[in-house]
């Protein structure tokens, strides 16, 4: 581990699900925490795939992934020591009979699994009062807090969040953004989003991603029309005045 700063290093990473259609194309990246990193990219740009590569769930065609200086390429067990994952809400099975506390407990290693530890994690995200509520009885924002608690319970210095604002109402999004900002004071948090407005001012770095890293840097240096059009295509508009629903 490189000092005490959590770090992610990606070295010439390439990945394809099948054939030669590279979803991640010879990408390199080096980021160090603590802090918040916002990853922007259109649908189908490979952000979730990139997260899975970082977590060792997918094995790349070439390249390496290092978390906190340790090579975790294609090794989810080794990666799990360093990083946790908050999935997209659409992937979470809400109909499963499970309380918030149990959802958090189930992510803990057997030797650490306890209700008290789960409650601690729920407390961290302001969801302790949801401990015994069934997942199906929660709002999107509440469920997202539980899934974040599930990732935090393991105490990893790196947390990857896959579109944490998706499927949440505007007030809920602001609450999640504030929570993430607070958590990023002591952890390296990388989140992907389609709504950069919530996290730009809170981020130390922005990564623009489309089948690979197109740009990385400070928000003021990277969040620019030409760079965004490179990733998103011509459908990026600069509008002087815009309306936001904040709740």
């Amino acid at each position: 581990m490189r000092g005490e700063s959590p770090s992610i290093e990606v070295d010439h990473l390439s990945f394809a699900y099948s054939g030669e259609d590279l979803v991640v194309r010879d990408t390199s990246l080096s980021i160090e925490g603590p802090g918040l990193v916002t990853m922007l990219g259109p649908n189908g740009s490979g952000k979730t795939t990139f997260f899975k590569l970082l977590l060792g769930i997918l094995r790349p065609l070439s390249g390496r992934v290092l978390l906190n200086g340790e090579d975790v390429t294609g090794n989810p067990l080794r990666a799990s020591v360093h990083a946790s994952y908050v999935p997209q809400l659409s992937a979470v099975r809400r109909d499963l009979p499970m309380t918030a506390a149990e959802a958090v407990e189930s992510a803990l290693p057997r030797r650490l699994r306890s209700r008290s530890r789960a409650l601690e994690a729920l407390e961290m995200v302001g969801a302790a009062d949801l401990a015994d509520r069934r997942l199906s009885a929660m709002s999107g924002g509440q469920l997202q807090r539980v899934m974040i608690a599930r990732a935090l319970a393991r105490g990893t210095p790196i947390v990857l969040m896959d579109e944490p604002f998706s499927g949440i109402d505007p007030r809920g999004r602001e609450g999640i953004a504030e929570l993430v900002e607070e958590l990023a004071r002591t952890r390296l948090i990388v989140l992907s989003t389609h709504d950069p407005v919530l996290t730009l001012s809170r981020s130390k770095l922005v990564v623009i991603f489309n089948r690979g890293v197109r740009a990385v840097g400070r928000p003021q240096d990277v969040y620019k029309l030409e760079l965004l059009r490179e990733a998103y295509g011509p459908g990026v508009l600069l509008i002087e005045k815009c309306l936001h629903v904040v709740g």
Partner: protein
Amino acid sequence: MYVDPRWVIVVLGSAAAFGSLSPLVYARRFSFFAASLPHSALLSVTLGYVLSLSAGGHPAAWAVALSLPPSALLIYFLHSGVSVDSATSAFVSFSVAGSVAAMYYVLTNYPARVSLWSYILGDPLLAGWDDALLVVAVAVPTCALAAYTYMEEMSIGLDAESAAASGVRVRLHDYLLALLLTVVAVSLLKAVGFTIEHVVMLLPGAIAARLARSARAFFALSLASSLASGAAGLALSLMVNLAPAAAIGFVLLAIYVASLLAGGGR
């Protein structure tokens, strides 16, 4: 009304095994596999019977040994990217055609000491002490293993990727669950019968999912509904001279309908 202890052991033992696995089937969305397993079990049992006559050995041991590779292969194909529909269709087609061919061969070539009908319809009332011992030998470790791996399976069911990221060996659990279901389906086929086996594997979990307010209650309710339907089904079958497997199926259905009407848990 005479109640033989062997009947009770076989019925309740089978109920315990199926009842403990059913919530895992529900959580992991393995119903496609659980529903097709009786076909594979029937093929394995029939071939096991043939091999035990020609090569010696216990027919149940042969049946279990023959049943595991196809199940493992199905999971391997799913991990390799074959769609669930395609893989299951191939699995069922192979099992159905194979079991019909095997049963025809047995019925025309071997003087059967045990009627194959007991495997198709299920007849715990024909159980001997060796059958009862087999059920206990399967049910006890099954319940223990299901309980031991329960939270990991629920974690995978909630979201497989975050479970993998937390250190759970998801693929290993896929194989473990598939092979455990296979062993149970083959070993207990005579107790519940081919016709009703997928019902006892699927319904307890479906009932519990409607009523449970927590994961722990989910497991307990599945086990309870399975045991209750086993006991009530056996009693009903003795009282009205109905096939035990049918009676168990009817009781399970009644409990499921009651859970729908109660509308609890959601």
